[in-house]
């Protein structure tokens, strides 16, 4: 993308800060997954450090999204382990993983079309007492539900304001543009109060100005202490914004290092120039 130099001037570009806690909330070890004999992900291991922006790049079909799905429980790995905040979460159901504080967005934004933006947002928070059928329909208990929802609502509007989609609050999510959906999805993920956010191609199909906005949001959130793992196949974008880059190719990790290290790697250059981008 030609916006690379613009992003390079972004003030929020990672600044190494020695004081930051360097623990690793997300650890992946030896992940492997085959689909009908085809190896989609093969012996993938990496760690994501707290409060960082880590990029996962690779050409189409490199196994990035499958890796995401293995981490978030959408697929069960054939082998390997995923640890989150020290706990083995391999093979847990997606909702169990999400509830531990690992939120994700989808490659093709999957908004809940016939729900308003507000409903989408209100859905996200964890521990809603009103998710019990019993509480929702019992007159006395419904008041607890209401007061909790009122608290949630404040936070929802904060997030809507933060992502500047408050003017769309009453719209059906299905009526949003592609970029707006990405914002909605990220906001929704944020409302689950996660430790780590996994963003699957958050910038695909987003126009340049919105891309800049999204990036600014990501950097701002990172500074607030959120941890990001971002899948992208636009190399420049990742190189200019992440402090660490993991390159995947044909299901394997080709290179894992700083953007500078990755740029200089022979393997990466070959994979990207040799294969289709």
């Amino acid at each position, binding site marked *: 993308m030609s916006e690379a130099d613009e992003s390079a001037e972004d003030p929020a570009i990672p600044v190494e800060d020695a004081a930051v806690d360097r623990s690793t909330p997300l650890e992946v070890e030896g992940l492997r997954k085959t689909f009908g004999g085809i190896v989609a992900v093969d012996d993938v291991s990496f760690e994501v450090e707290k409060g960082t922006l880590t990029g996962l790049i690779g050409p189409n079909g490199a196994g990035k999204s499958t890796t995401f799905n293995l981490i978030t429980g959408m697929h069960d790995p054939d082998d390997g382990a995923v640890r989150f905040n020290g706990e083995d979460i391999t093979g847990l*159901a997606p909702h169990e993983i999400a509830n531990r504080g690992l939120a994700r967005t989808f490659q093709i934004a999957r908004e809940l079309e*016939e729900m308003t933006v507000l*409903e989408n947002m209100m859905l996200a928070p964890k521990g809603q007492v009103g998710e019990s059928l019993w509480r*929702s*329909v019992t007159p006395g208990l419904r008041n607890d539900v209401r007061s909790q929802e009122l608290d949630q609502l404040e936070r929802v509007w904060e997030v809507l304001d933060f992502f500047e989609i408050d003017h769309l609050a009453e719209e059906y999510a299905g009526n949003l543009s592609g970029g707006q959906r990405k914002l909605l999805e990220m906001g929704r993920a944020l409302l689950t109060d996660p430790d780590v956010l996994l963003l699957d191609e958050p910038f695909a199909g987003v126009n340049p100005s919105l891309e800049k906005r999204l990036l600014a949001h990501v950097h701002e959130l990172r500074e607030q202490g959120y941890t990001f793992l971002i899948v992208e196949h636009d190399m420049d974008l990742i190189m200019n914004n992440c402090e660490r880059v993991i390159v995947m190719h044909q299901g394997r990790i080709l290179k894992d290092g700083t953007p500078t290290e990755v740029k200089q790697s022979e393997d990466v250059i070959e994979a990207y120039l040799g294969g289709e981008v």
Partner: protein
Amino acid sequence: MSATGLRDRVADLGDRDVGLVLAVLAVIYVVYVLAGVVFGYSLRGQLNSIANLTFYIGVFGMLALALNLHWGYTGLFNIGVVGFMGIGVYVTSVITKPPVAQGGAAQVGGFGLPLAVGVVGGVLAAALFGLLVALPALRLRADYLAIVTIAFSEIVRFTMMSRTFQTFQVPDTVLGIDLAADTVGLGGGGGLILNYPSPLEALLRTLFLWDPYLGFVGFVESNLIANNPKPVVDGVVYGLVLLLVVGLYYWLLTWTGKSPFGRVLKAIREDEDVANALGKDTNRFKLKSFVLGCALMGLGGILWYAGRGSITPPSFRPNITFFVWIALIIGGAGSNTGSFLGGAVFAALLYEGPRYFKNLVEAALDLGDGPGSFGQAMAAVGSLDPVPFFVYTLNSISQLRLVIMGVVLIWLMHNRPEGMLGHRKETASTIDLSRPDRRDAPEEAAATDGGERP
């Protein structure tokens, strides 16, 4: 200010719905009363007609509401509705029917418990079977779930018909409890005779209203309908009870829908993976939704059939399921108000309407008996006399109304798949979701609301 504004808006929404429902019902009833006038009905006739209409509006409204929870909210494609209805009413009957005396060999008795116990048992049984179906089947995709549920409802019907379950001998004591029942069962193809007090009587006795009610019937007898008015009054009052129950369904399902629980159901309907990724245990939600809906279908079945003299397996053919579906689609899946309206419109227009139309035409024109078969009707057309064909068509109206239903369903899917009130925003929350700190700025809040209702 803020609080009143909020209340006004809620009331406004409520009023719109109440107004809409009342308007539709008013139109339906006026048309039916006018038809009665044309037929020259006496007061008894009018009341019978009204009672009958109300009955079907009630049961279809209830069942459409229950199905809306499955399909409209959760996206569960259940086409086994009639199976759960059947389970409800059969279990109620077996629990409530009086025991037969020893030696009454051919007869099938029951446990002779109060009707209230029977109703609770029937609803619980429907819920239990719902759970049984749901546990394995809810992870299937929609069309497979459809096939499993309709197969289940047919298995239920085969069970009702089977000789194997026709009669059972009940042991004299179970776990030390002396049971009055001797021979119970599902009655096989002949069905069950419902020889227990009418549900209306049981209800009124429970509420200590039975004597006042008899007094009221006496009043009607001496002032309005001279000869045996009780069946008519029973019918009208039972219809009113049904409408009351519809109100309860509506209230329960609206609260279910307008809550965080309902929000998750909607999310499952839209995209289950997303709901999962947001930490919702979607299987549990689907299970609860399915079981609750099945329980309500069971109760619907009980209220439909338990007041009849008897129940037989052919009443529980899949046709009923599709009636409920058509009602829901007319009203608009996803909207509770729409579901009830769909039930009412279906009952008045498609279910009962054609018969009234036939009577109306027959009252207007004296057409005679008409031909007995399509061949004779066509033969007359061949000799340029369309009247016999017309009369044959009228006489076949009870079959043709199913053709009409089919055509209406096709038309709706082509032209208005969202029904009357589908796509409407019935926001799934217990609270108003507009910006909390903007409640003081009415203009702006109103502007945001502009798009709320199409």
